[in-house]
């Protein structure tokens, strides 16, 4: 069952990603992008990070894609199809391909010190009961909130400031 779900989602994600980089129309590739975002959200669900999934949808699908689409609307003559790739696409294919090869090999050959499925202390059974009291599944919201407000407070604050700066900066830059 899970393999099935993963297969579908992986196919969705990667296929959409492929669409992003190949489609001749910017708008369409933006749509592909949205699709692959959704796929990633699904992957998060598989990994038991429901809150992340929701966030992914909210932020990437709901916000970033909209930004992208707006940018397209504001910068393109709309239906224009152009030759999407520039001259260095051959070299790029090699580089990207070998990066993928490297990462994949590393990911596959490395003997990861897995604590799950073998299960670390207290993690062995990840049924919904234990999950309810933990950072797993959809009940992670509270845990995440506490963590953000306690041990990751600094990062939290810094990111907030960065967001504020980006907000103001974007307005200043884009204002004519």
């Amino acid at each position: 069952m899970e393999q099935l779900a993963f297969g579908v989602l992986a196919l969705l994600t990667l296929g959409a990603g492929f669409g992003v980089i190949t489609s001749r129309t910017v708008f369409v590739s933006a749509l592909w992008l949205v699709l692959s975002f959704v796929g990633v959200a699904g992957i998060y669900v598989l990994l038991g990070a429901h809150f992340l999934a929701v966030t992914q949808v909210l932020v990437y699908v709901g916000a970033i894609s909209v930004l992208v689409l707006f940018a397209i609307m504001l910068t393109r003559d709309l239906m224009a199809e152009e030759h999407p790739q520039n001259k260095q696409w051959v070299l790029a294919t090699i580089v990207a391909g070998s990066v993928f090869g490297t990462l994949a090999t590393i990911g596959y050959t490395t003997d990861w010190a897995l604590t799950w499925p073998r299960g670390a202390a207290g993690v062995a059974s990840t049924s919904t009961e234990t999950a309810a009291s933990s950072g797993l599944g959809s009940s992670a919201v509270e845990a995440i909130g506490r963590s953000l407000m306690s041990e990751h407070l600094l990062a939290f604050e810094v990111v907030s400031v960065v967001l504020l700066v980006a907000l103001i900066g974007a307005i200043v830059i884009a204002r004519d």
Partner: protein
Amino acid sequence: MTDLALIGPYAWLIPTFTAVAFLVIMAQIWTGRGNRSSAAIAIAGISASAVMGVLVFLGVMADPEGLSHHPEVFSRLPWLPMGSGSLDFGIQIDPLSAAVTAMVGIVCTMIFIYASSYMEGELKAYTDPKTGAVDEALGQQRYARFFAYVSLFATGMLGFVLASNLLQALVFWEIMGLCSFLLIGFWYYKPSAAAAAKKAFLTTRIGDMGFFVGIMALYWAFGTVDYDAMLSADGVARLAGLGNLPGTTIPLVTLFALLLFGGSVGKSAQFPLHVWLPDAMEGPTPVSAMIHAATMVSAGVFLIARLFPVFAALSPVDHPSDISGAMFVVAAIGAFTAVFAASIAVAQFDIKRVLAYSTISQLGYMVMALGIGAYVAAVFHLLTHAFFKALLFLGSGSVIHGVEHGFHHDHDHGGGHDAHPPVGTGASTLDPHDPQDMRNMGGLASRMPLTFSTFLAGTLALTGVPIFAGFWSKDEILASAFYKAFYEGETGLVVVVMPLLVWLLGTLAAFLTAFYMSRQVFMVFSGKPATAGAEHAPESAPRMVWPLAFLAVFAVFLGLVGVPEDFSILGLEVGRLLGGNPFHHFMGTLSTGSHFAAHPFNAVPAALSIGAAFSGWALGYFLYGMEPEQARAADPLARLGGLWRLLNQKYYVDEAYDATFIRGTVGFAGLNSLFDRFVVDGLVNGVSMVSERLARANGWVDRVLVDGTVNLVAYVNNEMSRWLKYLQSGRVQQYLLVVFLGLLALLMPLVL
């Protein structure tokens, strides 16, 4: 009696009041609305401080010994956190600081009130002496500025007295230095005033350098400059245990003490550095009064008194008054200064100058008293002297005021009175319009009765005529010197000869004091007026006279708090009234816990000093009182010839300094310039000539070899860059590509 626990926590207000006054007046000036009200503000500030000071003083009376032993430090706040502890900013309250604070408060209040009337000349439109341009407002601004300065001055003194550690003390000490500079040079458009200000500043600066170095040395050696850490019994013990200066037999503590003493030598104008004080007369008279009586010069003595345990560190605790090396120096300088200055005062004509030298000699008195360990007597004299010297200065100011008005009244030649006061040189050459020259006065007793009576009271006090304040304090100093010399069992040069010396010189100084003061009184007040100015001199305004009267009361009666218990009837009476020798009881304990035994009264020194005083008066009357007119016309002492000139020219000290230091510096500079011109320049030229030759040689090398190489390099670069420039395409994506190529180069080894 107020309770110190109640009043103490608010003691920080004492310097704050005046500081606030200063700030307010400054604000007035900046906003251009300084005027009479400024004086009111200043007076309000200082009188508030005075009231607080008196309250604190009363509070201290509850338990003087205890407080002397363990001074209370109120409103500590960490100020300079350094290394181990932090240097706290605190208000230290013990009998010494309390008494001096009260004195300063009262005297300064009087001076301020006096000044508010005395300085009114400033209120007139200000005419620039050089350009003659008239500024309506500036006069008022200057009037306000004066009171701002004096307020700050008072702040400095009060803060200094109440400071709880040396560094804090130094801060306020320097504030005082600044203010003295500003005030002495208040009429900066008078070259003499400007010069005097500079002189005062620089001279005291020499002493301050010693003071500052002393503080740093103390901190280095001792780790703290907090009074209560430094002056407590064990603190002093540690100081004494510091050992000797490496390679010498001089104990470190003695060295520190002497360095710190340098500060007081500067501030209270002891012998080598006394020269600034007489010139400080260039400032407005109230300022002179402040500097001489209440603040500046007392600060120096106060410093020694405050640090007395350090000076006495090497003498046994039960005998804090034994003379240590440091104290020996102090005593010597003090004694010398006392006689030295007194002798100069004898031959001065400028009324204020006489008083100035008298101040110096009185300070010498205090210093030498401290030097022989007569701590109580010294402080006692410090207090009494502050009152009657302030009285005398204000009195002289009132006299000058009057005489000047007399001149104006006689024939109105322009200018305000003190706005352009003629320079009181006091030189033997007589300027018939100098309102400060005693030879232009005379017969003022009838014309300025109040001034006369108060001035007389001050003089009697100063000359140590019995019953008057000065007598008791001065006599106590002489008495304790005498007692040390003959009754305390120790032997040895330092311990016996020094007190003896001090006693003899002190008596001599007392005689001289009586003489020159009587001379002054007779020259100024007796006989017929010498000039029109004296002829028409009116009595001063009440706001100037009443402070005199007030101070006169103190000048007369303050001494009674220090009457020796076993002094004949009076002492017993006072003792019965105030309980023993109240001042001695009040001041007699040190922060080390050691107590000064009050010496039993001895008739010999008392008789001698009384004798000296009266003989001084007698001589004065004989020379000047019989027919003052011709005494004014030709000073009888002039018959002394050379000695007279020597005294009149103040032993040519200034000239000596001029000849040695200043000329010396100039001459040295000239020498240097010669050296420059011939030796250095010669060298330089030679070098340049040689290097020119070399350069010619180099030139050839340059042209052929170096340039060749350079051009070659340039050429190579050029050719290379012609090819390499294609690498920088300005295409972000290309760069990114390269970046990831590099990344791959790093990652590949991991997989392969």
